[in-house]
Each structure stands twice: as structure tokens, then as C-alpha cells.
């Protein structure tokens, strides 16, 4: 009986989400604690799973026990999950950030929900189990179905506040469905060319028959999958839905979406890119990795530029996230271990940073009704702890040594130099300077008037908000301090990725 822990990690939020509508019929106030317990249990199980995988290495889980009666190397008959070190690290990050977001969502959730708060928490748990499925999936069609679960719950959660949020949610739905359909078209082309849906089997087919790699069907499949994932990870030209969605979403949902949705899509593309296609894939003689690097560089620079010109705080942080996706793509596409390890480490850091920034933006709105950058000054008087958290996260976004952000960027730059892509190094530096610029604009607005505005009395921030901002700031510093073992861990993942 193969190692069941990954399925248990998935089943905890999934079964809780299924039973919540039944439980919520009578005991409406039970659903938030129940959801919190489920996600914390999932967090503990994910840590145990990480330790188990580090001790015994990768395990595969074939659903329905189907590899028994066949001669195929991989279980390409049934659906399979791959529980390798990268997936277990992503599971730990996913579940811990989800639990912090749920703790944060206590006071900040929309109040006008009434009896529908049960369904609100059901959708949050469905979103988390959908993302867990994408992280662990070993079957390309399974990734599509999990993407749909996560996407549908995200559309509804974004649309809760009503009014303008509905229009933004509709736009997010149209672009999200377009992305999912392009991904499905990619799956269809791969299935037509090789006849299998299992990632391991697909990789073996592509390795066995080299002429398949340059066949037009596989190239079209790769392109469509890249466009599909590009929309899901909000890569620059396809990012139209992200700023509106994250700004108009309820303040409790923005950190959950910002920290997890684009990062898991990026993880999915990295898995397909390196574990299925192998790093040597070409689209018509243009090396895919260099194409990826150019697109990433463009996204990093333009994302930071757009963030500079924003007035709304949440919209500025959303554009910051888009620029970081570009940065990670630069690192992934250098093709050597340093940059790959650096970009995966930066992916984890960015998830924590985005969550922290949206915690602070949400608490500013919750306590001081501070929507735009100008009226953030009231934050200084009202809650100095938030300013402390903001400073730590800003240091990490820019990349100053004690925080984790620096080490990620540093390894990406080292890898780019190693691969002699100096335009990539230039793009990373320009993006850093622009990030510095828009945070400088933010801090000037906060600390400009030297005298403390008298009317702003000291507001006692809600304990759970203070807890979540503290946890993310400490996590960023901890990631920075013990970054060396983590980077070494990612280096041997890069080896398994064929670097």
C-alpha cells in the first residue's frame, strides 16, 4: 500500500469543504474554526510529509491502484501523484500561508454575508485543495481539472463585494477560462502526438523519440500550454485580470490569491517545462528558455514601472507581484543550477512577501479606511507595528541582505552572470531600482509630515492582524538568515530537473 500522506493532506481540506454546507445549516458560527482547524492540520501533515520525503526520497501514489496489471513503466493507466521534494516544499509553503491567511481573515472578512459565510469558507477550502492538487499532480489532465476547481472558487470569491467587484470578477472569469481552454488545447495536442497523459510517461515518450520534440504538434502543444499558464500566472502581456481582481477582492481574500494563485501556476509551468519537456525544448529553432527569459525580463521591468504609477495601495502591490513573476521566469530560464535554485527560493519568498503586503494593505483599510497611498500617513500614528512590518517586507521586496528576497535575487543574478546573459542581469537590476522607487514614494508619503497628526489616536490593531503581519515579517527574516541550506536543497532539485 503506497505511502498515503499526500492524499491525506489533500483530503483534510477537501472533506471539510464538502461537509461545511451540511454543518453550516444549523451551526453557522462553527464554520470558521472548523476551516482553521482543517488548514492547521493540513500544515502539520505537510511538514511531516516534507520530513518523510527528505528522509526517503520521492514517492508515487497511483489512484485506484492501477499499475498492477500492465507492463507500462509508469502508471499511465490511472491517475498518478508524484510526491517529490519540490512538491512537498511547495505543500508546506501553501498550507502554512493558507493557515496564516485564514487567521487573518477572521476580522477582515466581509460582514454583509449573513448565512452565506458558510459557503464563503467552503470556497476558500476548495481553493486550497485545488491548489494542493496542482502542486502534487503527475497527470497533465488532472492539472486542468484542479485548475478549474481553484479558478471557479477564485472567481466567486473575487465577486463577493458586489458592485465593481462583479465586473472585475467577470473579466477574471473570461480570461481565466481562456487560459484553461488554451491549456486544454495543449493537453489535446500532446495526447494526439504521444497518446499518453501521464507526465512521467510523456517525458519518456519525448525522450525515446527525439523527432517528436521537433514535430509541429508538440511545438504547438508547448505554445498553447505556455499561453494557458501565462494567463494563469499573469505574465506581463496576459496580466489584464490581476490588478483589478486583487484590488476589488474582499480584503481577506486578496492575500490568499496574491500569495498562492500565480505562484502555483508558475510552479506548474516549471514542472511541465523541466520534468516533461526537458530543458532543451525549442519552438522552431528559438530556444524556449531564452524566449522565456526575454518575456520574464520584459514582465519584471514593465511590472515595476506600472507599480510606480499607481495610487491605490493594493493595486501597487498587485503590479509588484506581476514584476516578481517576471523575475522568477528570468531565473528559471538561465538553465543553470544557481539561477534555478535562486528562482525557486525567490518563488517561496515572493509568496510570503505578497501575503504580508496584502495583510498590511488590508489592515490599513480595516483600521484607517486608508485606500490610496496619500492617506497612508494615518497608518504612522495609528499602528506603528504595521509600519515596522511594512519596512521589513519592503526591504525584502527590494532585496536587502538580512531578508530572504536578497538571497533569491542574488542567486538569480549569479546564475545570469554564469550563463553570460548580461541583459538578464540588467533587467533584474532595473526592476530592483524601480521597486526601490515605488517603495520610496510610499515611505515619503508616510513619513513626510514630521509632526504627528494630532487627531489620529493610537488604534489597537486586531490581534489576529498583528499576528499575521508579525508571522510573515519573521518568516521573511528567517528565510533570509537560513537561506543557505534551503538553496543547497533547491540545487539538488535542479539536478533532478536535468540541469
Amino acid at each position, binding site marked *: 500500500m503506497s505511502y498515503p500522506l499526500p492524499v491525506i493532506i489533500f483530503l483534510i481540506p477537501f472533506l471539510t469543504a464538502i461537509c461545511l454546507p451540511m454543518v453550516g445549516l444549523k451551526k453557522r458560527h462553527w464554520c470558521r474554526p472548523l476551516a482553521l482547524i482543517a488548514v492547521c492540520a493540513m500544515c502539520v501533515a505537510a511538514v511531516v510529509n516534507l520530513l518523510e520525503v527528505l528522509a526517503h526520497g520521492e514517492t508515487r501514489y497511483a489512484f485506484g491502484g492501477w499499475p498492477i496489471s500492465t507492463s507500462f513503466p509508469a502508471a499511465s493507466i490511472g491517475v498518478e501523484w508524484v510526491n517529490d521534494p519540490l512538491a512537498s516544499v511547495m505543500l508546506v509553503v501553501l498550507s502554512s500561508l493558507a493557515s496564516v491567511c485564514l487567521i487573518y481573515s477572521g476580522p477582515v472578512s466581509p460582514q454583509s454575508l449573513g448565512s452565506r459565510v458558510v459557503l464563503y469558507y467552503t470556497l476558500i477550502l476548495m481553493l486550497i485543495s485545488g491548489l494542493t492538487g496542482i502542486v502534487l499532480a503527475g497527470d497533465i*489532465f488532472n492539472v486542468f481539472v484542479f485548475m478549474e476547481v481553484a479558478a471557479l472558487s477564485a472567481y466567486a470569491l473575487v*465577486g463577493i463585494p458586489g458592485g465593481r467587484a462583479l*465586473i472585475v470578477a*467577470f473579466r477574471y472569469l*473570461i480570461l481565466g*477560462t481562456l487560459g484553461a481552454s488554451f491549456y486544454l488545447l495543449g493537453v489535446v495536442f500532446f*495526447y494526439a502526438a504521444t497518446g499518453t497523459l501521464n507526465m512521467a510517461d510523456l517525458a519518456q515518450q519525448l525522450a525515446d523519440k527525439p523527432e517528436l520534440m521537433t514535430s509541429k504538434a508538440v511545438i504547438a502543444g508547448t505554445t498553447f500550454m505556455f499561453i494557458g499558464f501565462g494567463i494563469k500566472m499573469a505574465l506581463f502581456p496576459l496580466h489584464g485580470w490581476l490588478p483589478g481582481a486583487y484590488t476589488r477582492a474582499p480584503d481577506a481574500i486578496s492575500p490568499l490569491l496574491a500569495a498562492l494563485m500565480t505562484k502555483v501556476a508558475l510552479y506548474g509551468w516549471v514542472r511541465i517545462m523541466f520534468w516533461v519537456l526537458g530543458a532543451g525544448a525549442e519552438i522552431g529553432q528559438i530556444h524556449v528558455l531564452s524566449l522565456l527569459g526575454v518575456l520574464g525580463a520584459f514582465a519584471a521591468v514593465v511590472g515595476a514601472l506600472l507599480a510606480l504609477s499607481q495610487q491605490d495601495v493594493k493595486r501597487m502591490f498587485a503590479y509588484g507581484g506581476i514584476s516578481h513573476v517576471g523575475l522568477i521566469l528570468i531565473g528559471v530560464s538561465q538553465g543553470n543550477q544557481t539561477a534555478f535554485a535562486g528562482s525557486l527560493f525567490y518563488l517561496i519568498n515572493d509568496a510570503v512577501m505578497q501575503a504580508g503586503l496584502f495583510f498590511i494593505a488590508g489592515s490599513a483599510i480595516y483600521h484607517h479606511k486608508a485606500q490610496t497611498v496619500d492617506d497612508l500617513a494615518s497608518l504612522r500614528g495609528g499602528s506603528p507595528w504595521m509600519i515596522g512590518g511594512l519596512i521589513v517586507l519592503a526591504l525584502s521586496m527590494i532585496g536587502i541582505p538580512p531578508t530572504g528576497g536578497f538571497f533569491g535575487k542574488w542567486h538569480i543574478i549569479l546564475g545570469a552572470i554564469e550563463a553570460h546573459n548580461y541583459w538578464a542581469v540588467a533587467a533584474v537590476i532595473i526592476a530592483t531600482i524601480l521597486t526601490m522607487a515605488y517603495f520610496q514614494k510610499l515611505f515619503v508619503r508616510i513619513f513626510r509630515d514630521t509632526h504627528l497628526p494630532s487627531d489620529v489616536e493610537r488604534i489597537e490593531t486586531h490581534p489576529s492582524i498583528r499576528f499575521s503581519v508579525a508571522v510573515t515579517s519573521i518568516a521573511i527574516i528567517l528565510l533570509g538568515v537560513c537561506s543557505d541550506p534551503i538553496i543547497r536543497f533547491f540545487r539538488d532539485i535542479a539536478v533532478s530537473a536535468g540541469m
Partner: protein
Amino acid sequence: MIEHIVAGLQRPNFVAFVILFLWGFFVMVTHPNLVKKLIGMYLLQTSIIFLLVTIGAKKQSTVPILQAADAAAIATHEVDPADYANPLPHVLTLTAIVVQVATLGVSLALVAAIYQKYGSLDEDEILKRIE
């Protein structure tokens, strides 16, 4: 280049897929009316499913349901896969059709809520009413 495209035109199914896919994509992205966008989305998704099933189809093959007469043949493993259609694309299609209707349900709920709030289905009209 030209003979590649002419070779492509030899496949009526693929040509039908290309026409439906591009037209649905065009209407879904550019049409101002919200419900018309959803009709375009519906056509886009059905065209992808259409391509998926044409890949699974085989000439002179029956429906993949093993009749009792084949029970003897199956017992001795001589089921010839060539005379049954490929069942895997049908499974993926069943899932994709139901995903398509689920997405349609949620999008129509959003359209209904938008109409309830802004009283119009036309995108430009709604944008005017936001200010």
C-alpha cells in the same frame, strides 16, 4: 509552406475546429455584450472538445461497448482494439463538457448579478454607469 497548409486542408474536422475555435475566441474577447461573450466562450470550449474526440475516432470502428458476443473473445485477450473507438478521449470530453457547463453557470450568475446592479448587459453602458 503552402503545401503544408494544403495538407492541413485535407482534414475537414481540423478545418471545422480551426473555424469554430478562432470565431469563438474572437467573439469571446471583443464582443461588448456579456451574454454574447459567453456564447463565444461556449463555442471555443466545444471546438476544443471536438478536436479531442476526432483524435480518438477510428474508421470502421464501433462504439467502445463490449457486447456479450465478445465475452468469449475477451476471455482469451483477442479483443482487437482497431474495431473499437478509443475510449480515453470520450472520458476527457465528458469531464470537459461538465466543466464547461459549470463555468457557464458561474458566469451567468455573475452576469445576472451585474445586470441586477447596473441594469445593462452592454460593457460600454456598464462602464459609463460606474462613474
